[in-house]
């Protein structure tokens, strides 16, 4: 397939739009970060606050970076699917097809064929989470190290779980709390609410612990290099030699491996909880009974 000039121009436009978001976020961060040399372990920067009647709405780095991630993923998808054809031919089409097929097979093998429509949702959660965590690589605040982001996703998943538990009617749903023995109902209710809490805290804690440990190690290395090379004259004395390279090793684990693993685990748990909460056998029986009733009426 021969690439014409228009095709290349649209490609470059997509890539530019994709990188525009992170650049804007970096500019905002540079403009708003207060100057300090101290150890800086803080939450998201609050850019400005919108006055609302009920309560003020702070627009923080979390929201801005989430929108940036969504924006970048959108243009990345446009770039990857640009110029796909039935016969194929572009390398990016192979990647796009690989992503779609992998997600579909993952969803089908973990959730069963009833939930095969869930592939886009699972892929979206995975991409959002992975790219949010990878945002640390360009020095931005990862939205996943704010509890509000992950709690939002976990609440969404909680609603989905409850929706699929309600598929057999409210009576069946209430009965499911007294499952092994009725007096365990309070514990079942607690464990129902523990699901989103544990999902939110797991993702948030992993990303946050990575950034906290990275900052602590960087500060410790600065102090250590000051202790060792402090006697050198002039510029060499104040230059933190030990900070070169060593924090990058930690970053490979905490930022790349841990971030991608947590994205995978969040998506995996979403799938398992939703398909585990759905009473498949009872739903099939109920469906069959309804069909029989309808047949009798006819």
């Amino acid at each position, binding site marked *: 397939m021969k690439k014409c000039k228009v095709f290349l121009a649209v490609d470059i436009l997509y890539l530019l739009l994709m990188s525009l978001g992170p650049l804007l976020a970096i500019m905002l961060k540079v403009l708003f970060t207060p100057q300090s040399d101290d150890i800086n*372990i803080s939450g998201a920067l609050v850019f400005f606050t919108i006055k609302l009647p009920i309560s003020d709405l702070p627009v923080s780095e979390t929201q801005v970076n989430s929108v940036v991630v969504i924006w970048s993923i959108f243009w990345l998808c446009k770039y990857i699917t640009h110029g796909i054809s039935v016969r194929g031919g572009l390398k990016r089409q192979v990647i796009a097809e690989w992503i779609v097929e992998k997600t579909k097979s993952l969803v089908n093998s973990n959730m069963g064929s009833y939930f095969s429509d869930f592939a886009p949702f699972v892929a979206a959660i995975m991409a959002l989470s992975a790219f949010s965590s990878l945002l640390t690589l360009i020095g931005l605040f990862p939205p996943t190290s704010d509890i509000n982001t992950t709690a939002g996703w976990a609440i969404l998943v909680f609603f989905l779980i409850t929706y699929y538990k309600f598929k057999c009617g409210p009576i069946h749903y209430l009965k499911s709390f007294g499952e092994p023995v009725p007096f365990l109902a309070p514990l079942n209710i607690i464990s129902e609410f523990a699901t989103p809490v544990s999902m939110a*805290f*797991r993702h948030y*804690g*992993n990303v*946050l*612990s990575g950034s906290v440990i990275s900052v602590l190690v960087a500060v410790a290395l600065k102090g250590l290099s000051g202790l060792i090379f402090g006697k050198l004259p002039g510029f060499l004395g104040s230059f933190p030699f030990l900070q070169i390279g060593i924090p990058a090793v930690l970053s490979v684990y905490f930022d790349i491996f841990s971030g991608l693993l947590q994205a995978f*685990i969040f998506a*995996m*748990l979403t799938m398992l909880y939703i398909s585990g909460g759905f009473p498949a056998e009872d739903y099939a029986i109920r469906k069959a009974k309804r069909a029989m009733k309808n047949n009798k009426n006819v």
Partner: protein
Amino acid sequence: MLELAIGIILGGCALGAGAAMIAGIGPGIGEGNAVAKACEAIGRQPECKGDVTTTMLMGCAVAETTGLYALVIAILLIFVAPGRFVDVLLNAVGK
């Protein structure tokens, strides 16, 4: 006297954060067991290495949760709790 009280608050928060991280023992043992069993399984059946690794990573992440709860509490005790407690103290004293 007030300095002493604030010092006790800060020290208590730091000690509490340290004590909370004792919970790190649990996930350590749990994940170690999981990885050991996964190694055994791969040794017995090398052809299902991919599945075993995926399941092991899942299990490790779920076992890590209790440790992360402790971590979140420790971080709260270090970065959030001292300010709150000192505010409560100052309000109680009336300053």
